[in-house]
């Protein structure tokens, strides 16, 4: 359609665009319905989850009663149930090719299972079972080779073909809660232990590299899948810390918004955002470079969220919680699902751009930032704000009344780091 773009014919561009932006923001909030469905079937709290590396519709979950379930997300059904362990399923991971998966449990075993359900007349049995000496608390598979790592009192690196670990890495004596392979530089490992530290390992030299001791214990960590040296740690002190592994002295960003211990974290496959699960019964989405979350998900029935995963197509988020359910959320709350017509897509992009352009305008910001929170979280946030403010005031006062320079100003980033051990 031929159009005349003479600016004189289309006056008031800023007010008109502002109106559009305001409408777009309002609509975004109106259509923000992130909750898609709940997968129920577990008979105890969901303790761990794993993504299928080749199939988007398949998700594995392990519960506190030792049961492992495989889910089909398109049908939102459980397609297979295995009684894998006695006691907790502590950790699970899928092999990079998607043919099998590993689980570790409280019964001191590592088990490898076929991804496909057993044929007719076949028994539901693991391919391999390794009986260890100690309890394994976590497991992760190498991204390219037939190697996996478990953690317990020490980090063990196993060859799939052997029943004894290739090497055991220790540094300190406390039990290690989670171990993760770097997805890009695949020889790198990160682990976090209950003695408040994060330790990095190199598989090639089979040595630990460096250790950071934080104020409180780190529960999990996750490597950025697009930036080799960046990882984020979910800490007990309600915060998440994004570190550059080359400069461990202070985290790159401190992400604070949770009001209780952060239990799990997972990066979006684009590496731009991550999702965190917390003991405060909410799930939050943080941009990697921002200190605060852009989204918070909660429902009335969702209890302490123990595990969370961001699906490999960057569209959905899965969280497993104490009350035995796995919930499926949209990663972008107001996104329209399904195929978009080109005009719809163009309109969506335009609206997105407008929202971005006018994001500093108070009305738009007010609408865009508005979120509903359950009262418990809301109150806790308020309380913590007061506490933080009090602490700040006290420090200010102390600084004011003491010799100049005697009380140094410590930045928020450095505050939480106790030491870096070489």
């Amino acid at each position, binding site marked *: 359609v031929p159009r005349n*773009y003479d600016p004189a014919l289309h006056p008031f*561009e800023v007010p008109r665009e*502002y109106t559009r932006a305001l409408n777009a923001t309002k609509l975004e909030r109106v259509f923000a319905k992130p909750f898609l469905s709940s997968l129920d079937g577990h008979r105890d709290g969901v303790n761990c989850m794993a993504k299928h590396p080749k199939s988007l519709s398949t998700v594995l979950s392990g519960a506190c009663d030792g049961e492992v379930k495989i889910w089909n997300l398109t049908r939102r059904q459980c397609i297979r149930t295995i009684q894998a362990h006695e006691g907790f399923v502590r950790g699970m991971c899928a092999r990079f090719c998607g043919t099998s998966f590993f689980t570790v449990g409280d019964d001191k075993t590592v088990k490898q299972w076929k991804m496909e359900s057993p044929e007719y007349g076949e028994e539901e049995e693991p391919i391999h079972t390794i009986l260890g000496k100690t309890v394994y608390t976590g497991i992760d598979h190498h991204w390219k080779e037939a190697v996996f790592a478990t953690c317990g009192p020490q980090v063990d690196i196993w060859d799939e073909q052997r029943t004894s670990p290739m090497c055991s890495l220790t540094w300190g004596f406390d039990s290690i809660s989670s171990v993760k392979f770097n997805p890009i530089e695949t020889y*790198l490992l990160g682990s976090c232990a209950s003695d408040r530290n994060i330790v990095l390992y190199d598989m090639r030299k089979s040595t630990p590299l460096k250790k950071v001791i934080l104020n409180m214990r780190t529960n999990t960590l996750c490597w950025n899948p697009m*930036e080799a040296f960046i990882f984020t740690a979910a800490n007990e002190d309600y915060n998440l810390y994004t570190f550059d592994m*080359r400069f461990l002295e202070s985290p790159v960003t401190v992400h604070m918004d949770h009001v209780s211990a952060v239990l799990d974290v997972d990066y979006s496959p*684009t590496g731009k955002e991550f999702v965190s699960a917390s003991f405060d019964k909410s799930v939050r989405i943080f941009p990697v470079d921002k200190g605060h979350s852009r989204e918070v998900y909660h429902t009335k029935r969702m209890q302490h969220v123990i595990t969370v995963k961001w699906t490999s197509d960057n569209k959905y988020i899965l969280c497993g919680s104490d009350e035995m359910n796995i919930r499926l959320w949209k990663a972008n709350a107001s996104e329209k699902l399904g195929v978009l017509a080109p005009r719809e897509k163009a309109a969506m992009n335009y609206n997105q751009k407008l929202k971005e*352009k006018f994001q500093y305008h*108070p009305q738009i910001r007010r609408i865009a930032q508005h979120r509903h929170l359950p009262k418990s979280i809301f109150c806790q946030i308020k309380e913590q704000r007061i506490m933080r403010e009090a602490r700040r005031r006290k420090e200010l006062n102390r600084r004011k009344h003491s010799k100049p320079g005697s009380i140094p100003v410590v930045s928020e980033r450095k505050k939480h780091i106790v030491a870096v051990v070489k």
Partner: protein
Amino acid sequence: MEAASRGSGGSGAALTGWRSLPKRQGFGSGQLADQRYPRCHQARSFLCELSGGVTWRKLAERTEASVQVSEFNVSCKGAGEKLVLSELLQPIRPKSALSSVKKELTRAKQKKAVELPLSKEEAKRVVREAAYVRTSKDVGKWQQVVLQNRRAEQLVFPLKQEIATVVPLEQMASAWKARTPLEQEIFGLLHKTQQPITDPLLTPEEAASLQAMSLEEARQRRAELQKARAVQSYYEAKARREKKIKSKKYHRVLKKSKRRKALKEFELLHKSDPEAALAKLEELEQLRMQERMSLKHQNKGKWARSRAIMAKYDLEARKAMQEQLARNKELTQKVRVELPEEEPGDAPEEDLASVTLPTIPAGASGANPWMLGKPSGPAEEPEVQESLGDIAVPGAAESKEEMEEEEVSEEEVSEEEALLQDFAQKRHMRQQRAGSPEGQGEELAVLPQRVGADETEAASELAGNSPIHPICAEEQASTGLEQPPQAQEEVLLSEQLGRVRTMEDVETLASEEHVEEQEQLAAARAEKPAAARAEKRVQQQEGGGAGDRRAKKLPAKKKKKMISLQAVLAGKSQEVQCPSLPVVMEEEEGGVDQRGVITEAFAGDDVVADFRREKRKAEEAGKPQPVNLVLPGWGEWGGTGLKPSTKKIKRFLLKPPPAPPRKDRHLPHVIISEKRNIHAAAHQVSELPFPFERHQQFEQSIRMPVGPTWNTQRAFQKLTAPRVVTRAGHIIQPISAEDVPDMTTAAGSGAKPALEIAPKRQEQPLRRPRKRAR
């Protein structure tokens, strides 16, 4: 001693010069020394002899080292010996025997001791540190990539486009086996019916059909097709070449040969297959008609005219003329057999004509006297009409046909006379036309109807002779009213261009109506399309009712009679004045009225004055007010009716400084309010947002519109491109070295600087993308 000095190391050679000394002092073994130094011994004995041959008490010689050394045993062995100058010349530095040992000691001291092995912990730490440095270096090679990705305007995920591979069904099926009873049963059934279960999953028939089209065959077929295509292209090229040949003779010969060939074939066909022959005949008839419609054999060409002139004198020329005429006749002769067949086919086309011309004998087309070759003067006119109706193309064919018909009518007459007659006839026609303006007028009246059909022919028709009878023409004119509505539609569309603006226009339009027609006619010669359009417009105007029109037409014709053709022809083409619709004019009238109505309705309102007043008020309000601090009663008498003194008023009335000049003082039609609007302020940004450093930057970022209203489609797409694009249903794998083409090159050069500047840069990239986003 010797051995000791040797054993101490490579310094033995340097010490040889001092070897005599230790022995002389009685440390070493004397015999050994004597043997070695015979000259020394001789000198000693010689000294003894010199002393007088007196044998002194034999001096005890100490041969081995003992703890107790007697003082008496100290010999003065060298006392009797002779001194040799040369010996004295040798340096007699007392050199302690321990010097070498000392040296060794110092050397040993200088050497660093091998340190104690480190403790296990420390050793591990060293290893860790080294490993950490190395690893962080390795990881640092991603720095450039990461920065690039963070700054990228748009990232499309997944980075590596995977090509979906489809596993063939056979492969899938071959791996699968029937296990459950149900499956086994089904398989059993399939086996029974000999259905294939595994590779290649084809029934025997299917296999056979596949076999039928083997690769060889397919190839062969392809080759054939290729060949056919090539041949076709050759043929096309050839045809094109032949078509380009300009030689008339060549074409004539070609045509003739073709015709002959066709005739022969037709005859053959007639014998073998009468049905096909009939079809062929029809085709031939079509060809003949085409030929007939062409101007080729009408004695109009250059050649024919020259022949006509020559015919009087030249016999050959005459013969040629005759031949030509004969050919013409042959062509124009209608084949009898076809006539009944032709009629139904033409019926729909001449529908209108047959309906509108009920008076004309219906059988005319069946027994056209012209076609029969029987010329008859009086019957001419109706026939013309008929032929008009008969042939689908009314205007175009008509003139030609007339010509032909005339010629045919004169065919009976002898050849010489025929020509002459022809000319005479033509002359006569011309005279008739000039002499009888009535007919001409009729013709002119007819014209408009035809214009729609063929504008180009109109002029030629006028110029050429048209022996149409007035009555007949009149009839035609009447029939013209019932022309297909399609033509009318077209007319309507083009009509809306012209407009009547005033009352006078309409009046002139009414009075000039007839004159216009003539003018249009004149113009038709010069610029046919324009004239035609104008004509149509006139028609449309009159299109209110057919009867009306008729009535109007008649006086118009009468008037036209007075206009000589010459005058019309000589008249220059004039610009046709655009006639207009009275409807439009009425609207215009109404518009004038409306204005009046509006002014009447809003007579009381003077908006301009109101505005002025408002502005004055705004100006007044904008002026700063003086502050009155006068308190009556202070320092003077107070009470009702008493005013404070002027002095006091002067003192306590504070006049504020004058306000800055108003922005709208030079704009009489504008009021600029500089007050802050609270309602608008709620929507405004109160402080500069973070990444911007100046408010201009921020304002600029807001000022530029991104919408499609202000930008072209392309620019709009570019401006609104999302920063991250993901595709539904695609798994996004973590980045790998293969995804980054310049990774290997960047790793070598870029790793180091990246590491060095990293601490500073580290936060920068995180902020940058945000800045770009605005």
